[in-house]
């Protein structure tokens, strides 16, 4: 899966979790929890959605690697075999 496709998925899932916000409009290097007012339940739902959609195993200890949109895209792109629904 190409990074552009991954970014599209990340933005889509963020929109689902915080429908009142515009994830594409925030700084992709900013902490998305602050920028989108996302709490721990929202963040867990975000990880759950990425896992279901991309089949990526995302252990809890890796959560800090997904705190910005750019970091999340890099992290997911580094996972092999992405795109197989888990």
């Amino acid at each position, binding site marked *: 899966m190409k990074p552009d496709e991954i970014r599209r998925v990340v933005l889509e899932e963020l929109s689902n979790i915080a429908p009142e916000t515009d994830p594409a409009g925030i700084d992709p290097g900013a902490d998305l929890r602050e920028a989108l007012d996302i*709490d*721990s339940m929202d963040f867990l739902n975000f990880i*759950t959605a990425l896992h279901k959609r991309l089949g990526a195993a995302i252990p*809890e*200890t890796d959560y800090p690697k997904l705190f910005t949109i750019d970091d999340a895209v890099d992290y997911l792109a580094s996972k092999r075999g992405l795109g197989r629904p*888990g």
Partner: protein
Amino acid sequence: MGTFSMPSLGADMEAGTLVEWLKHPGDRVERGDIVAVVETQKGAIEVEVFEAGVIDRLLVEPGTTVPVGTPMALVRGPGEEAIEAPAPELVSAEAAAAPAPSVHPAPPPSAPAAEAPGRPRASPAARRFARERGLDLVGMTGTGPGGAVVSADIERSAASPAPAPHPTRGLDLAEMRRAIAAAMARSKREIPHYYLSTTIDLTRAHAYLERINAERQPADRLLLPVLQLKAVALALRRMPEFNGFHTADGFQPGTGIHVGTAIAIRGGGLATPAIHDTDRLSLDALMAHLRDLVARTRVGRLRSSELSDATITVTSLGDRGVESVFGVIYPPQVAIVGFGKPVERPWVAEGRVVIRLLTTTTLAADHRVSDGHKGGLFLAEIDRHLQEPEKL
């Protein structure tokens, strides 16, 4: 024949608007079934029925605003015959102005009696409220049934002009703000709060979560607030004076431990829906309830029992935010427990300075019901449960 009435979904609710019927005459209902959707200041609420039976007839039309307690439907109990009398006319928006009689079966409410000149229509709560604030009801615009002045109108009149309603979602955030304002103003007016604070070591609880979450897919993972809710619920078993309601008759202990959990809404506002029998639920079941409640709170779709049954409130600031929160008690409850953001800090354990994950835990409680000494024991009991996460 039982009646299904407009429920009271909070101390300051005076009326609600029926949005739709989800059950119809002839439908069988069980206790807890959702029968209707009612629009309130807290969004669209799914209202449950308290007795099993068969819906006999509906007394109120969708779109009608009726006072709390107004019979809205008749429910035939097991073995009861259907009423053969001609069906009464449905209460419509025009006819619903006067409070319905409390006896049943209910005839349609009569037209509102003409008010004496110079005495505006107003609910008793609104009259009391206006008196307390030194406001005159004459000339005030009422938004209650039949143009009656209700507490919210007094609030509006006393405060600056209300912001325009927020049109998104099923939630009117301006209305919700007014409901919060009314409840919190009443709390600060009536409840003599006392406040306690202590530091709880979360290192064990956090390690426990890390251990079990490592083996789970994201959809099955647990969050810290679930452990906190369970710890509070278990502590309440031994400290019943913090679980229940303060009424005109004094303290009424809760019939169960139904912990209300504060859920913030992006853009402002919050709700504190109850998780029924929190002390009897497994951590997994609690997590499922919490996930569901957060989702429904944010789209404005809670159930009536979730809004009216909480016997205490817990507010947890999560991993962002600040280190401590001193809550305002939600009347008629008598306590609120607050958990601050967990932070790593130097801590002395067994004679050595070590790094531990700590949370400032607070209690605001009603001095009419308990004292600081008991409050301290309550916080200590919560601490004790959080040190044994595997037993939660």
